[in-house]
C-alpha cells in the first residue's frame, strides 16, 4: 500500500539525508549495532554468515564470511581419477546436480576430444533441464518463504518430488545422481514409458502449476511491495561483479551460455532467453530476478519437450564403462549454464589418471559478492529479500 512518496527508497534514504553522521538526539551517543546473520540463520540458505552493521533497521555494512562448507573438492580432484570425481560435482550445487555433472563431463570431453553420441546429448539436455526446473522451484519456494508466504513452498516441493521421482527412475539416485560420465551417460532411458511421464509432467507444470504460483505469489500485491525496487542491481554492476545466470538476466543483460556459447545440442532447440524488463519496479530488482526464474521454468519445459520428442536412436555411451579414463595432457576452460549461472571448470591434465589442477568457477560465488555493494542501505528485511533473490547455494560457494 506504500505509494510513491512514502515508499522507503532505502538507497535514497541512506545517501540522501546522511542518516548516520548527524546525532539523532543531541547529546545521546548512538552507535551501530554489530549483528551476525548466520551461519545458522534461516534466511541465509545454508551456512553463509553475514556480518552486519546496522543502525536500527538500515544495514550500514555487510561482510559475508564463507568457508563453513569447504570440503577441499579441488584438492581431492588431484587425488581421485576422472570418473570418481563426477561424484563430487553432484555435491556442488546439490539443487541442480545434473547441470554440475554436465559441466564437468563437458570439460573432460573437450580435453579428451571425445565425441558424444547424439542420443546421449539429448538425454543429458533433458535431464539437465529437469534439474534446472527442480532448482528454480526451490528458488521460488525459498524466496517466497523469506517473504513469509508458507504455502507456495509446499506446492513447489510437491512438483519437485515429481521431478525427483523421474530422475530416480533414470539414474537411480534421488538427489545426487552421478549419472553422466565422460563420453555419455551411464544408463539409457528406462523402457517403462519414462519419456511419456516426463512429457506429462512438463505439460502439467507449464499449463496449471505455473499459473497457480503466479496468482498465489508472483502477482500478489504484498509480494510485489516487498520485492519491487528492492536490491536493485544495475547491468553495469552485475557484469562488473561477474554475476551470471538469472541474476545477470534479471538486470537486463541478455546473455545465456546455452545460446551464446553453445555446447551439447542446445543449438537444435528453439526457446527464448528470459530477461528482466522492470515490469514492477526498476530493472534488476528482486522481483525481476524472481520472474526471470519463473519464466525460465517455462522455457526449460519447452526444451525438454523438444529434446525428448526428437530423441534419436543409437548408443548412449561412446566409451565402454572402463574403470579408468585416460585424459591426454592439456588445459581447457569450459562453461555450462547451470541453474544458478555460469558453472565453469578449468582442468589441467598431465596425462595421468588424476587431474593436475581442477578449478571450479561457481556462479553463486560470484553472484554473492554483489551483496557487499547492493546490501548497503537496505533494511534488514530487504537484505533477506536480496540474498533470497540471488538464490545462492553454499555447496558450490565453499566447494
Amino acid at each position, binding site marked *: 500500500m506504500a505509494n510513491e512518496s512514502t515508499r522507503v527508497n532505502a538507497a535514497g534514504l541512506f545517501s540522501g539525508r546522511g542518516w548516520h553522521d548527524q546525532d539523532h538526539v543531541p547529546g545521546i551517543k548512538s552507535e551501530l549495532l554489530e549483528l551476525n546473520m548466520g551461519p545458522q540463520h534461516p534466511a541465509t540458505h545454508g551456512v553463509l554468515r553475514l556480518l552486519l552493521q546496522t543502525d536500527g533497521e538500515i544495514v550500514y555494512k555487510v561482510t559475508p564470511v564463507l568457508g563453513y562448507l569447504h570440503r577441499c573438492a579441488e584438492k581431492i580432484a588431484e587425488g581421485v581419477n576422472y570418473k570418481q570425481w563426477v561424484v563430487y560435482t553432484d555435491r556442488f550445487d546439490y539443487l541442480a546436480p545434473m547441470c554440475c555433472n554436465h559441466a564437468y563431463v563437458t570439460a573432460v570431453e573437450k580435453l579428451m576430444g571425445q565425441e558424444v553420441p547424439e542420443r546421449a546429448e539429448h538425454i543429458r539436455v533433458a535431464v539437465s533441464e529437469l534439474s534446472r526446473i527442480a532448482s528454480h522451484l526451490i528458488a521460488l519456494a525459498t524466496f517466497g518463504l523469506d517473504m513469509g508466504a508458507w504455502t507456495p513452498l509446499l506446492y513447489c516441493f510437491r512438483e519437485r518430488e515429481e521431478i525427483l521421482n523421474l530422475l530416480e527412475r533414470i539414474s537411480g539416485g534421488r538427489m545426487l545422481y552421478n549419472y553422466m560420465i565422460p563420453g555419455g551417460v551411464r544408463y539409457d532411458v528406462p523402457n517403462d514409458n519414462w519419456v511419456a511421464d516426463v512429457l506429462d509432467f512438463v505439460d502439467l507444470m507449464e499449463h496449471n502449476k505455473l499459473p497457480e504460483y503466479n496468482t498465489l505469489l508472483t502477482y500478489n500485491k504484498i509480494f510485489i511491495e516487498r520485492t519491487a525496487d528492492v536490491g536493485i542491481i544495475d547491468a553495469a554492476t552485475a557484469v562488473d561483479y561477474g554475476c551470471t545466470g538469472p541474476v545477470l538476466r534479471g538486470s537486463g543483460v541478455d546473455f545465456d551460455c546455452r545460446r551464446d556459447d553453445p555446447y551439447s545440442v542446445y543449438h537444435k532447440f528453439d526457446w527464448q532467453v528470459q530477461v528482466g524488463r522492470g515490469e514492477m519496479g526498476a530493472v534488476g530488482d528482486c522481483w525481476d530476478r524472481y520472474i526471470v526464474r519463473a519464466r525460465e521454468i517455462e522455457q526449460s519445459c519447452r526444451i525438454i519437450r523438444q529434446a525428448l520428442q526428437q530423441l534419436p536412436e543409437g548408443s548412449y555411451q561412446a566409451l565402454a564403462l572402463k574403470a579408468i579414463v585416460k585424459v591426454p595432457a592439456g*588445459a581447457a576452460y569450459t562453461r555450462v549454464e547451470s541453474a544458478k549461472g555460469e558453472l565453469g571448470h*578449468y582442468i589441467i591434465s*598431465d596425462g595421468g589418471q588424476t587431474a593436475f589442477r581442477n578449478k571450479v568457477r561457481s556462479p553463486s560465488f560470484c553472484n554473492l559478492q554483489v551483496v557487499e555493494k547492493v546490501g548497503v542501505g537496505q533494511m534488514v528485511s530487504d537484505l533477506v529479500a536480496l540474498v533470497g533473490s540471488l538464490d545462492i547455494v553454499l555447496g558450490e560457494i565453499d566447494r
Partner: protein
Amino acid sequence: MEQNAIYELLAGALGDGALGYNEHALEPWADVAPAKVVEACRFLRDDPRLGFNQLMCLSALDWDGLDEAGKGKSTAILGYTDDGQPETSDRVGTGDLGVAYHLYSHALRHKFTLRLRVARDVAAVPTVSGVWTTAAWHEREAWDLMGITFTGHADLRRMLLDDAWVGHPLRKDYVMPDNWNGVPLQGQAYSANPFPVETGGPDQPAGDKPAEG
C-alpha cells in the same frame, strides 16, 4: 575476433610485456609478464575492438612437478600407507606458481586466456580487482588456497579457510597438519577398519535393537 588477432593487438599495446603466445595448444593462451598484467587487462577491457567486460574465471596454479611439454607426475594427495599412517612428504616444491585469467566479451562474443608465471618464493602478482571487481574474491581465494599475494588488493584476507589457518592447501608440497586447535584432522586411516569389532563384545552389532545384547 580471431585469437591470434587479439594477441597481435595485445602485443602491440604491451610491447615487451607480452611474453609469448601458444597457438596450437588445445586452448591457446598468451603469457604476460606479472608486472604488466594490470595494463594488459585494462587494455583488453577498454579497447572497443576487444571489449572483454567479463572476467569469467581467475585461477591460481602450481606448476610444481610439471615439465615443459605438459607431462609429468602430479603428486597425488599425500595419501596413507598400507598400515594406515599418513604419508609425510619430504619433497620441497620448486616449480613456480601461476595465475590464469579467462576473459569473455558479452558484446563481441569472443574469449581470451591470459596466463602468467611467478617464482615460488616471491609469489606476488598485482591485483586486477581495479579492472573487474569480481577479481577481488577470486584473488582472495587464490591467496587463501595457493598463497599468491596480490599487491594492491583492498583486503586480502583468507576467503574459505579460517583466518588462523597455516599453509596453503592447494600447493603440491602441502602437508596436512595433524590437528587444528586440538581437533584431529587426519582422522582414522582410510584403509584400515576404523572400528575394530571385538569378538562377542557386549556392543556386538545387534542390528536395530538397542545394544542391550
